[in-house]
């Protein structure tokens, strides 16, 4: 066994001892880390699900509808089509006549479709449906044709998407603020817990310094103790979030809120990321907390 290995073994042993010695305050530390991570998990699920909604909406609304005047001529339609196709922001242009539009409406009304038979004239306009590469191009495409002959109105849904993006930004920033505050609180609680071990071992640390122990050797056990508190908190919160969310997701699907659950991230897709994030954050605040509490004691 090399010298370095023996030193590391001693440090680990002391770290585990500290964990046991500090059970009471340790529980407080673990609880606070768990709470932070669970809240973080809830925000994470919320943000990811909202992201889903935004992506989905983008796909559904990435088109511009151009309503045409009834008296429009075939050559005018062709002119508009050609103008639109010049742009590299456009995927396709489809012409839908007013008769087609009425047929589709009848179909979508299903059993009540016969009600539309009573119409004397077809109120629906001819439509050009322009598929865009991205909804953000809608404005410029609309502008490029708005002054052409035969166009009655141009419609697109950018405002809905803007609102959604704004909303999900609010949630994300709000989550960030709440989680950061809670992270700070956890670091503070952990550092106080570790301080108890440090104080209990003050004489020992003092002697260690005079015998020539390196700062790393003295600090090591405390960092390990903090790290372990963090990891325990991470494991507990992973269990809570995965079981809790799974339960919620299944219950919601069962009760036929499918419209709602299609937008939620499926638990399986989420868990791997949650595990990595939680373990990293748990270990991080644990180690950071103990380093904060040690700083004063090492300057002898």
């Amino acid at each position, binding site marked *: *066994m090399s*010298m*370095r290995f*023996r*030193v590391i073994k*001693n440090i680990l042993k002391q770290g585990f001892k500290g964990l046991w010695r500090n059970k009471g305050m340790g529980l407080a530390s673990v609880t606070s880390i768990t709470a932070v991570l669970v809240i973080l998990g809830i925000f994470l699920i919320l943000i990811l699900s909202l992201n889903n909604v935004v992506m989905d909406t983008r796909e559904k609304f990435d088109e511009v509808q151009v309503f045409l005047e009834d008296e429009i001529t075939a050559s005018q339609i062709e002119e508009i089509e050609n103008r639109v196709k010049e742009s590299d922001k456009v995927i396709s242009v489809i012409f839908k006549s007013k008769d087609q539009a009425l047929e589709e409406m009848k179909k979508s009304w299903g059993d009540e479709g016969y009600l539309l038979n009573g119409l004397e004239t077809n109120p629906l306009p001819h439509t050009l449906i322009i598929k865009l590469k991205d909804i953000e191009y809608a404005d410029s495409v609309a502008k490029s044709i708005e002054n052409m002959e035969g166009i009655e109105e141009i419609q697109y849904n950018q405002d809905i998407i803007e609102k959604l993006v704004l909303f999900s930004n609010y949630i994300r920033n709000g989550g960030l603020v709440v989680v950061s505050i809670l992270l700070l609180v956890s670091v503070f609680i952990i550092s106080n817990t570790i301080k108890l071990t440090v104080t209990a071992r003050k*004489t*020992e640390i*003092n*002697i*260690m*310094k*005079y*015998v*020539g*122990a*390196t*700062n790393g*050797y003295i600090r090591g056990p405390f960092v390990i103790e903090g790290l372990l508190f963090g990891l325990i908190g991470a494991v507990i919160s992973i269990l809570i979030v995965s079981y809790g969310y799974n339960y919620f997701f299944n219950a919601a699907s069962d009760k036929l809120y499918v419209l709602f659950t299609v937008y939620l991230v499926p638990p399986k897709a989420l868990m791997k990321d949650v595990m990595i994030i939680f373990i990293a954050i748990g270990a991080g605040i644990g180690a950071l907390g103990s380093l904060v509490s040690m700083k004063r004691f090492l300057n*002898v």
Partner: protein
Amino acid sequence: MLLIRFVNVNKEYKNGVKALSNINLFIDKGEFVFLVGPSGAGKSTLIKLILKEENPTEGRIYLNNRDITYVKNRKIPYIRRSVGVVFQDFRLLPNKTVYENVSFAMEIIGAHPKDIRRNVPMVLSMVDLSDKAHNYPHELSGGEHQRVAIARAIVNSPPILIADEPTGNLDPETAWGIMKVLRDINRRGTTILMATHAKDIVDAMKRRVVEIEKGVIVRDEEKGVYEHEIPGY
């Protein structure tokens, strides 16, 4: 070979207190040096400078021919490994046995378990505590406490042992026991620097005496006594 060298050392604390002025002190390998003087004269500051608890304001300090005037914080532990320290208040770990209190000092520096098993009983027999190896500190007398502390200080075989009033808390008879141990350690080649107020011990040992007063070395004589004899005093 000179083990400790103070060259024109001044130490002024941040609060303006001038603790040491113009200290020139040379201690040879194998010497036994008493550091005497009233409380607050600067003895502790001098020891703190050797242990790198404080940096000097001016001058140079050499330990084992190495300039330790300014060293990086992370190098300090390695300097301390060449200096054993014994304090007036012993500083033992109450939850460890005599053996563990001593072996602890070797574990910290990552010594080989074989060396630990060999060295610890050896130093315990040197301080005459072999039969108390598995007792806890609360079962020991004051003198025994200090002997454990000495064993811990020398177990890693440092060339220098610094003793800061090692007999301060002990009755005269026990104190003599400690002095005998220190004398034996010195005879085996360890240099000893001992700060003390114990006049009778200094007078009887007849070793080199360095006297500090108000931060200045006022006397440094071979085979000295505690107080400079003043005629008619």
